[in-house]
């Protein structure tokens, strides 16, 4: 698929644009230059990269400063992945990069050149939800929903890590197969903050899906 060429204008940018003159609009929208069809000459601080997101290959020309999170949201218009703290503290930006859950805000897009990324949009659709998406709905694992894409991507990673036998801080025996207890899930999900406090239901949702697979 062609990469989207016109970034959606965020609420914040719309405010900036609204406050500026029409002449200033094009320079007030971040990412416009990087997404123009006729690529600009690559300068020292812009780089070409390819990224396969949810199975679709994209060619991008980005400022080197662009985080993977901003590449997804502002350049590929995949706004399911959320920006919470932008400092790796809240987990709202969690995606699965080359098979591992990571904070997409704390990595540069150029560091993922040639890489594979799965976001919440790639896990399921409203018509065909991922089992974790369905379980979050069933168990009411959210209130406002802002942290939910990160919670679900993180939970996908947690289930995989448990299946691979990776221990956690609360595993009683480092050398035994990790359990799928509520304590284990709470510890493993501690990098995902939910300010609405839906933790109990989140643990129930993950337990239902993980329990069926472990």
């Amino acid at each position, binding site marked *: 698929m062609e990469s989207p060429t016109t970034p959606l204008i965020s609420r914040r940018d719309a405010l900036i644009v609204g406050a500026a003159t029409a002449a200033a609009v094009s320079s007030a929208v971040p990412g416009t230059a990087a997404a123009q069809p006729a690529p600009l000459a690559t300068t*020292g*601080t812009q*780089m070409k990269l390819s990224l396969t997101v949810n199975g679709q290959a994209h060619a991008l020309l980005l*400022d*080197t*400063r662009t*985080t993977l999170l901003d590449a997804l949201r502002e350049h590929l218009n995949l706004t399911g992945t959320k920006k919470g703290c*932008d*400092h*790796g503290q809240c*987990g709202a930006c*969690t995606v699965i990069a080359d098979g*591992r*859950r*990571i*904070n997409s805000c*704390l*990595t*540069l897009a*150029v*560091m993922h050149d040639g890489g594979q990324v799965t976001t919440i949009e790639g896990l399921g659709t409203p018509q065909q939800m991922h089992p974790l998406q369905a379980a979050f709905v069933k168990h009411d694992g959210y209130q406002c929903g802002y942290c939910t894409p990160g919670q679900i991507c*993180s939970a996908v*990673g*947690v289930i995989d*890590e448990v299946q*691979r*036998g*990776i*221990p*956690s*801080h609360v*595993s009683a025996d*480092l*050398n035994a197969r990790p359990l799928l207890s509520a304590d284990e899930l*709470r*510890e*493993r*999900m*501690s*990098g*995902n903050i939910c300010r609405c406090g839906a933790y109990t239901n989140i643990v129930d949702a993950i337990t239902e899906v993980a329990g069926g697979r472990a």
Partner: protein
Amino acid sequence: MKPFTYERAPSPAQAAAAVARQPGAKFIAGGTNLLDLMKLQIEAPTHLVDVNGLALDTIEPTADGGLRIGALVRNTDLAADARVRRDYGVLSRALLAGASGQLRNKATTAGNLLQRTRCPYFYDTDQPCNKRQPGSGCSAIGGITRQHAVIGSSTACIATNPSDMAVAMRVLDASVETVRPDGQARVIPIADFHRLPGDTPHIETVLQRDELITGVTLPRPVGGTHVYRKVRDRASYAFALVSVAAIVQRDGSGRVALGGVAHKPWRVEAAEAALPQGARAVTAQLLAGAQPTHDNAFKLPLAERALGAALLQARSAA
């Protein structure tokens, strides 16, 4: 973030050479700490040398029965390695006590050793900080110092080293391997790797600017019961107020290092002779000369009790 150029290094020595060529250049591996600091402009490299493509991501046995951990081995993989879990449990435990699952999947062994302090005044760019801006002063001294160092600090800086992994590495007598642009390698004992702040708190390790960590070597296993006990304000995903890495043998002898109390992992080998007598006798020597503040004097009894709990845990597990 300030603008920067970016390149991928083809070899460790070439990575070091690339950093040597440009005064504002830095290495980037996991990036979880560096990018955080770049967003705040506490770090503002003009050039990044990405070392992720270097083949430094394996854990191999050494000729003398130890393990060589590649600089790029991710924290998750190091903690989960079967040999580390079996023979160096204190290292697995320390890694798993740190950060979050997402961060451990990205953060590297070398990067963990080089992570910067989480002193809130270091992070607050509106305030003087000798570590961030040499010579500007220390805002922590006389400020809110609950998290800060109780020993080994100076009138220039009372920040702590935030790493859990480094505390375990210290108790395991690890060595840090590096390479320079001319290809010359050296081995730095972990005891000598991190510096005390003195009057140059911005210089945190003995590494040269263009010196790249290539790996960390663990000596052959010493046996015993391995314990890492971390005391923090939350049950998970928080930095230590005090942590204890301990390896205790059946006869009661062993090794101990503390985290959260100093500018480097804190170990005093001479204090370990007192281990059979219990935590009080050890911490009396380990923390002799401590200069806590009003806010963090609690760390002294906390360290003693955390060590006591670690020794109890070791005895019941042995």
